[in-house]
């Protein structure tokens, strides 16, 4: 029988339960509400790898009371990309400002509706023309503010060069690497002397560096997929052909083993866009001997360089736009360059003494300002990158990795790559 007391207890219990559920739901719903009671707005900025924003964000937060910046860091672009598309589809959950890797910008612009139009006449002429164009869609809306560009040089371990009997001075090293054939021939000499150390860090990375010198790597100018072109096949043959020569570390870029080989003398050189210097320094704690040569085999090349976008799903698009504009202003990008070597895409920043006179103590006091500017000037080809570029590149690097790690021979792996591209639909 139900007494009055038990009934009251039950009522209380169910009320408590309902309250708990309601408050949990409220807590879930309220998680991304950034406007706190004291009137400040928090703008989250999602980045990957190293953008060099830590100092800049402290600077902003110290001088702004109404808007605070919070950084969300992810390991690699591929993880950031998976997160980005998942949350674009979900319609919520993205940061107020999202960094986009340059190669994926065409795919992002195919979804322009999901992003805030950042066009601002006041910012005309801030960026290099090709960088501004890469952030602008076919309707003339600017979707992304350029952060950096990635003029490629060659980073090398002078200490390992010395042990192999190669010159160590960065100007003399540069003379050994004018063409890809020279670069690989020097590699043959190196691995003969140092059989336990590879010549470059990863075949996938090298392939990407070489692709940045091809005008139409995966797509024709009207964005038709064409992967069976002689230039791409040549890059593939060269890179996979080097595996048996012992030049490649046979390790996939960005993995645990790849990170570990910085500490284990795993390789001697790597294709080195500006932003890579920050990554090398981060992985090479306690390792002396890094230097950078003012050269890139076969002419210049641009690898990566990113954009800041403002997803339309955010609650504070105006504030986010303001933050993105501030972070990509020449003064700020010049500081990011000093912090992690990400070479500014802003005309004014490239000319500023802060950038031009910069030296990097970790890279044996290399004048990275002049070197990177020279590397940028050497770029003659801007590869055509359509909406599928990023996805095809991923498949291409998997193809290279398959040969590298020995799971497929070059021909079989190439066939699989063609099938993978086909499956992209």
């Amino acid at each position, binding site marked *: 029988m139900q007494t009055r007391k038990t009934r009251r207890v039950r009522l209380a219990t169910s009320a408590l339960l309902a309250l708990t559920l309601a408050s949990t739901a409220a807590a879930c719903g309220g998680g991304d509400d950034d406007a706190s009671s004291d009137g400040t707005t928090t703008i989250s900025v999602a980045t990957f790898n190293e953008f060099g924003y830590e100092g800049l964000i402290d600077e902003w937060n110290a001088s702004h009371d109404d808007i605070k910046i919070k950084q969300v860091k992810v390991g690699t672009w*591929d993880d950031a990309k998976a997160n980005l598309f998942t949350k674009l*589809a979900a319609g919520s959950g993205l940061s107020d400002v999202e960094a986009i890797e340059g190669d994926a910008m065409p795919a992002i612009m195919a979804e322009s509706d999901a992003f805030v139009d950042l066009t601002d006449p006041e910012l005309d002429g801030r960026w290099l023309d090709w960088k501004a164009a890469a952030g602008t869609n076919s309707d003339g809306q600017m979707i992304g503010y350029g952060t950096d560009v990635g003029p490629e040089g060659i980073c090398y371990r002078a200490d390992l060069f010395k042990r192999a009997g190669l010159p160590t001075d960065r100007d003399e090293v540069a003379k050994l690497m004018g063409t890809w054939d020279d670069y690989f021939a020097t590699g043959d000499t190196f691995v003969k002397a140092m059989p336990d150390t590879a010549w470059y860090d990863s075949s996938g990375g090298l392939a990407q560096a070489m692709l940045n010198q091809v005008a139409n790597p995966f797509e024709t100018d009207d964005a038709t997929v064409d992967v069976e072109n002689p230039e791409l096949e040549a890059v593939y043959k060269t890179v996979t052909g080097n595996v048996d020569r012992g030049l490649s570390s046979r390790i996939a870029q960005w993995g*645990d*083993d790849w990170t570990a080989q910085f500490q284990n003398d795993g390789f001697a050189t790597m294709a080195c866009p500006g932003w890579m210097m920050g990554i090398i320094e981060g992985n090479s704690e306690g390792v002396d001997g890094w230097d950078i040569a003012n050269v890139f085999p076969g002419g210049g090349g641009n690898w990566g360089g990113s954009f800041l976008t403002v997803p339309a799903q955010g609650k504070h698009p105006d504030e986010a736009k303001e933050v993105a504009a501030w972070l990509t202003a020449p003064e700020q990008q010049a500081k990011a360059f000093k912090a992690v070597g990400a070479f500014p895409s802003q005309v004014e920043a490239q000319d500023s003494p802060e950038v031009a006179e910069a030296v990097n103590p970790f890279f044996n006091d290399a004048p990275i300002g002049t070197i990177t500017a020279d590397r940028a000037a050497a770029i003659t080809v801007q590869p055509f990158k359509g909406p599928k570029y990023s996805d095809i590149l991923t498949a291409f690097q998997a193809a290279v990795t*398959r040969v*590298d*790690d020995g799971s*497929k021979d070059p021909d079989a792996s190439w066939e699989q790559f063609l099938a993978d591209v086909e499956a992209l*639909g």
Partner: protein
Amino acid sequence: MSTQLPIRGGDIEEMSPPRRGDRPGRPATPPWRQRLHRIDYRLSPYLYIAPFFLLFLVIGMFPLGYTAWVSVHDWSLLGGKGDFVGLANYREVLDNPYFTKQLVNTISIFLISSIPQILIALALAGLLDNQLRGRTVWRMSVLLPFVVSPVAVAIIFGSLFGDRYGLVNQVLGAVGIDNIAWHTNRLASHVAIASMVNWRWTGYNALIFLAAMQAVPRDLYESASIDGAGRVRQFVSITVPMIRPTMIFVIITSTIGGLQIFAEPRLFDETTTRNGGSDRQFGTITMLVYDFGWQLRDLGRASATAWLLFLVICLFAVVNLILIRRIGSLGGDR
């Protein structure tokens, strides 16, 4: 049923006006309260279990049906629903060589993990069933790995099983065994992932076995030892048959879990796409669902793959059921 219906003449009875008084042995007009009581008695159990089934309908059946709906359409992650394409998505998935490969991987990882896992758990439970000093400590500590998040486990094991600089290979090297390519060799990668799964689940299953073992009547062991049966014989002939229902439970849950394995292989992967190795050496079916849906941004093919996985799991469940029936009948009079 079909023979009973005409005899009861249900149709006629429903059409004719109610004739309460006709029924023998019952009061002509049952009191209102009594009828209420009968309804309460018959209906209440269903009402009590209804919340579960309502929830199941919403979060179980609806997604299942919706996935089927998506799987017969062109459906892009960002663009949404496209044309109706019938079974084209299924055909594309079945024609994709990765589907077969990743299905084989899934089953292989499942077998390499589940079989040793259940055997070790059984042996572990048998040992813990003894009168040990500090029993609770021992019993709780086998559950410890279960508390650690699978993501953390995957990261730690991924680093232990590094191809070049991993601890496992360094230890193997110290005893003169060549480096094993844990991320490239198909079988080696399955073993590495299975070890991750086993590390996490063996203790958990052992505790479930232990609970069942403690319900086995102790006098059976006494009479067995009087008959001269040793400890091992007792374990095989008494303990294992007596806990068969629990074993069935553990086998079924680990089948379902094993066929849906995702976090471990995905985080074990060193390549940027995380599809399970450069050549999908250890890609599983759920990872293929993810690849189609979120990397190729095609929810149509992702849903078709998910449904195919569902059918595979159903198939395994049926095979399990048949095997268990077979074992049950072998057990004699149970």
